[in-house]
């Protein structure tokens, strides 16, 4: 029996496709998320909107919080570690979490190096803003990618920008001739082998979700139609007035993302969504997406 193989790690991400991964900070949240049909939960001490408001250094959650959530739900439990903080990742692996998110939402521990994720049996998901960043993370061993968006804003604009950037670059590489790919790999700062694979298959070698700013069922379906294979919802659910109803609606809109009648139906009477933030009003140094490279 071979554990922690690439097939098994990237395979779990494939099982999550078409689903919604919800940020939860308590056992009660986790129960609501599972009941609403989340395909996994992200166990946190604070949702990104609160991390943003609190400032200071954001670290891995208290293992007691993570374990309590793992014991409560039967769906996969993810948890975040800081970029480059491989010991936080070791701790999360030791706790038995199902997926580690090396996340820009937490304060980076290393401004030069991400974690060498091939060393772990637990799979990792990493954020990206463009194809080059996605392929660098995959080369380091990420078994799943998510576009970063701008977490904790309830504003979809950055998620759209990042998903469009990734998909546009994939289409561009697909249409190139082989002799153009080395220069493109250099320009992207991505390994040639992965650029060759994208050229051949017309897609990323791992599953790609959208994250950072999803607040409504229509936001989720928008990201799916743009090419996401599933969505992460952070603050968008538990910062809304009726988390239960909104969570169910976002799950349904993600499955039926090409069916406007269903999206319309599930969007009715959701109550007040999370208060959004105009990205332009956020000081440059407080943006999360530029963290990592």
């Amino acid at each position: 029996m071979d554990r922690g193989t690439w097939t098994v790690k990237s395979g779990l991400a494939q099982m999550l496709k078409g689903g919604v991964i919800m940020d939860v900070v308590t056992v009660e949240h986790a129960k609501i998320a599972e009941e609403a049909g989340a395909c996994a939960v992200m166990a946190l001490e604070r949702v990104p909107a609160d991390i943003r408001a609190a400032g200071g250094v954001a670290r891995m959650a208290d293992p007691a919080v993570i374990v309590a959530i793992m014991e409560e739900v039967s769906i996969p439990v993810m948890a975040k570690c800081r970029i480059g903080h491989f010991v936080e990742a070791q701790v999360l692996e030791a706790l038995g979490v199902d997926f580690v998110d090396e996340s820009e939402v937490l304060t980076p521990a290393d401004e030069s190096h991400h974690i060498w994720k091939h060393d772990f049996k637990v799979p990792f998901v990493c954020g990206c803003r463009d194809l080059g960043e996605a392929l660098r993370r995959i080369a380091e061993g990420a078994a799943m990618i998510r576009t970063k968006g701008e977490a904790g804003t309830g504003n979809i604009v950055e998620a759209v920008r990042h998903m469009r950037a990734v998909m546009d670059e994939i289409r561009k590489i697909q249409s190139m001739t082989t002799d153009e790919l080395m220069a493109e790999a250099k320009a992207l700062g991505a390994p040639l082998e992965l650029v060759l694979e994208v050229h051949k298959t017309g897609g990323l070698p791992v599953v790609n979700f959208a994250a950072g700013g999803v607040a409504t069922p229509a936001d989720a379906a928008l990201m799916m139609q743009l090419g996401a294979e599933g969505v992460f919802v952070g603050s968008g659910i538990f910062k809304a007035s009726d988390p239960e109803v909104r969570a169910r609606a976002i799950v349904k809109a993600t499955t039926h993302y090409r069916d406007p009648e269903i999206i319309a139906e599930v969007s009715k009477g959701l109550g007040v969504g999370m208060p959004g933030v105009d990205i332009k009003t956020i000081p440059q140094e407080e943006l999360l997406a530029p963290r990592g490279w």
Partner: protein
Amino acid sequence: MLTGGTRAKKIGVLAQQGDFSEHIALLRRLDVEAFPVRLAKELEGLDGLVIPGGESSTMGKLMKEYDLTEPVRGLAKEGFPILGTCAGMILLAKRVSGLNLEPLGAMDIEVRRNAFGRQVDSFETDLEIPVIGEPPFRGVFIRAPFIERAGDAVEILARLPNGMGVAARQGNMVALAFHPELTNDPRLHAYFLSIVHGGR
């Protein structure tokens, strides 16, 4: 395979959530029409149905919300060919330990969910499966279930070395605890299609 005069078989793959596109891609290599099924009306005119891998609780809830549970139960009762992989096996079972909803109860098997532990315990291993012959099949087990008990009408198609049942057939239904759709090996899908075509 297509033969002169007969139309290609139509296989629906439940697409509430999970790795349905991997099943569709593999089935299309075997010369059948395969497409996603999200609503009950899309079950019409099918020759076979696949319930893919994914989160069984998510899939089960969405099947219920969009009125697929009873029609799929009805198909199973009529002897309709159904293949379930991992979450699909869980949903086909009569009883499931560790699931917060009622499964379809289509097959006389009792299944334990997340039976091997968490993701760090997920594994791949070679399986001897007599109905497809040699060489062994690469079984990919991801937070996988296994069969705790099977009724007399159920044929166990494969076991792990410790004796746990991980593949079963009952009538025209096949349940697998692992993911043939994550391999490049089409033999188990071809086996299912032989059932769809009426052979054994």
